[in-house]
């Protein structure tokens, strides 16, 4: 191109904003690009990626990549051989919570009452049906021997007779079923001061041989009668009873309150307010 050639000067100049851009519209109503550059509506790579991200296909792609690039068999084997330390979690929280024929379960709850008071309440076994759903009746016919009638699935009941094997006031009550008991079981309830003045930590551990083994345990779980479910619920009820003096219910007819509400009423009637 020679310097004499100045024909480029006479070409029409590009304008800004480009033609077709409506300057007077508010910003949000303007077209982002002139018509020629706008998306023609076809399936672009950008759209495919956006759709895939939206639909979570990224997760699938990630899974595929993991299968291809993930730890090799030798790596996994090495992991399996590495010695494990024994951690600080209670044994009953192990993924395999079964020891010999025994299923072990347990649960903790913090109750804002002094431990001596909670111990005394628990040690009077006749109080147990007041917060334990499946205990129909409990008592201590002779010192150190307790008998419980436990509601079992499908309308049956089991009698458990156990010996108090460790009784430390304010700290622990432990029991073991005697020979001829309906269920072979042992357990303990421990009381200790909660940190920061939060009351008492009540911890229960129950080991039992599920009738009919694992099948029986599964059936019991279905009916919410399995000890791990029961321990959780029962301890919450104990907390309600000792902290608030009653056990919460959504029933709004006095006749329809369950055995827990009736027990509170009976207790109130037998010991009129001072």
């Amino acid at each position, binding site marked *: 191109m020679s310097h004499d050639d100045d024909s480029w000067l006479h070409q029409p100049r590009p304008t800004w904003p480009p033609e077709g851009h409506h300057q007077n519209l508010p910003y949000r109503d303007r077209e982002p690009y002139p018509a020629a550059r706008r998306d023609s509506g076809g399936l672009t790579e950008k759209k495919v990626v956006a759709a895939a991200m939206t639909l979570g296909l990224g997760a699938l792609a990630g899974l595929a990549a993991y299968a291809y690039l993930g730890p090799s068999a030798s790596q996994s084997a090495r992991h399996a051989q590495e010695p494990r330390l024994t951690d600080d979690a209670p044994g009953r929280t192990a993924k395999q919570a079964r020891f010999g024929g025994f299923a072990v379960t347990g649960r903790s709850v913090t109750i*804002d009452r002094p431990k001596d008071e909670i111990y005394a309440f628990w040690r009077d076994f006749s109080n147990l049906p007041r917060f334990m759903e499946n205990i129909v009746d409990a008592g201590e016919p002779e010192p150190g021997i307790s008998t419980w009638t436990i509601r079992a699935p499908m309308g049956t009941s089991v009698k458990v007779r156990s010996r108090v094997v460790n009784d430390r006031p304010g700290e622990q009550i432990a029991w073991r079923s005697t020979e001829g008991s309906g269920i072979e079981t042992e357990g303990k309830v421990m009381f200790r001061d909660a940190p920061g003045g939060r009351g008492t930590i009540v911890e229960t551990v129950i080991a039992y041989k599920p009738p009919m083994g694992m099948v029986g345990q599964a059936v019991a779980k279905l009916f919410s009668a399995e000890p791990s479910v029961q321990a959780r619920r029962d301890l*919450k009820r104990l907390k309600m009873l000792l902290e*608030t003096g009653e056990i*919460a219910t959504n029933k*709004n*007819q006095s006749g329809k309150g369950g055995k827990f509400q009736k027990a509170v009423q009976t207790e109130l009637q037998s010991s009129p307010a001072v």
Partner: protein
Amino acid sequence: MRALTYHGKHDVRVDTHPDPQIVNPRDAIIEVTSTAICGSDLHLYDGVIPGVLKGDILGHEFMGRVVEVGSASTLKVGQRVTVPFTISCGACFHCRNQEFSHCDNSNPVEKQDVSESLYGHPMSGLFGYSHMTGGYPGGQAEYVRVPFSDVGPLVVPDHLEDEKVLFLTDILSTGWMAADQATVEPGDTIVVWGAGPVGLFAAQSARVMGAEQVIVIDHYPHRLELARSLGCKVIDYHQTVVLEALMEMTGGQGPDAVIDAVGMESHGFENFNPVDTLKQKVGIGADRIGALRQAILAVRKGGRVSVPGVYGGMADKFPTGALMEKGLTLRTGQTHVQRYHQELLRRIEEGEIDTTFLISHITSLEDAPQGYKNFAFRQNEFTKVVLKPAWAKGREEAGRANMAHWTGPSTPGSKPATAPSRDVLTDA
């Protein structure tokens, strides 16, 4: 007694139920004089909260007179009370820490399992809000059994009419806590998503707490008008690019705190919403978090995110990157009504806070099903519906926020006049 009863999605009816009785020693029975439909009732109405059963009595904003007390209640028959929607024992760890909506002891044990497996910890009991929170019969009824009546109900003076104090039970306290958790500091801009009852009360509370600028985002003109009448600036997200506008309205810094008063049924905003809606419809329990996503993107670095909006399930595309990289503080939760309602009652008595500006319709309890329908589907006109169990079917009065009082759209910078309150009307 008559009570508003859940029959299914978008199907609620007023049915006859047996009158409630004292069951536990700390109970009281309240004869309801006023109750209201809450925005969160619409989540039940829309069927997106699990565990609502046919036959459940709904309603958790109610007040009335004490007609019967249990042996351990501290209330007296004849007292006029507002009842917090959260049921709290007053004795557990959380109640003693003033976290009343986290009460350990108010949700019946067998009702705790669902929320315990869903959330890791059980929820506490709430009135009329699904069996996850206890399945307690609710307050859109002639009578309600109130557990732990020595802790929850607040005795209110007779000279304050129902409409002035009813919202202490939930939405006013909730709006106040939302602003409290957003932490209003001098010079702050607070932005509220959703000009529903909680959003408007949150905006009002932020003003009372001294925010420099409060901006409310919605798309219903009449609701935005109410926000403007409180002295807030408004953004209609149908007209405006919200993120850009918020940057420009805060000198390029972004708002100091944001409040999501929308919750799990967020509309519009962005492209993930159709997928979230689909998931919610087929019952995967997904929350629609469009408003929350936008709020988290909008808030300035080091800002605060306060979430009074109700969520129940899970969400994806949650902006964890923005949350972490911008150093945000996220505060959430059902309202600890008992922590705030006394102070708020004082502010109402002193005329600092007015709650009646919000009410658009007052109808009989018998007309509650129509009230639900209107509140759900005609949100521009129906800003708050109050129900009166004692009124005859068909009786209806206009509240101050009724469209009948509307004089047309206001202009930026103006402060629209609202209709005078009822006592002013009767004085004249």
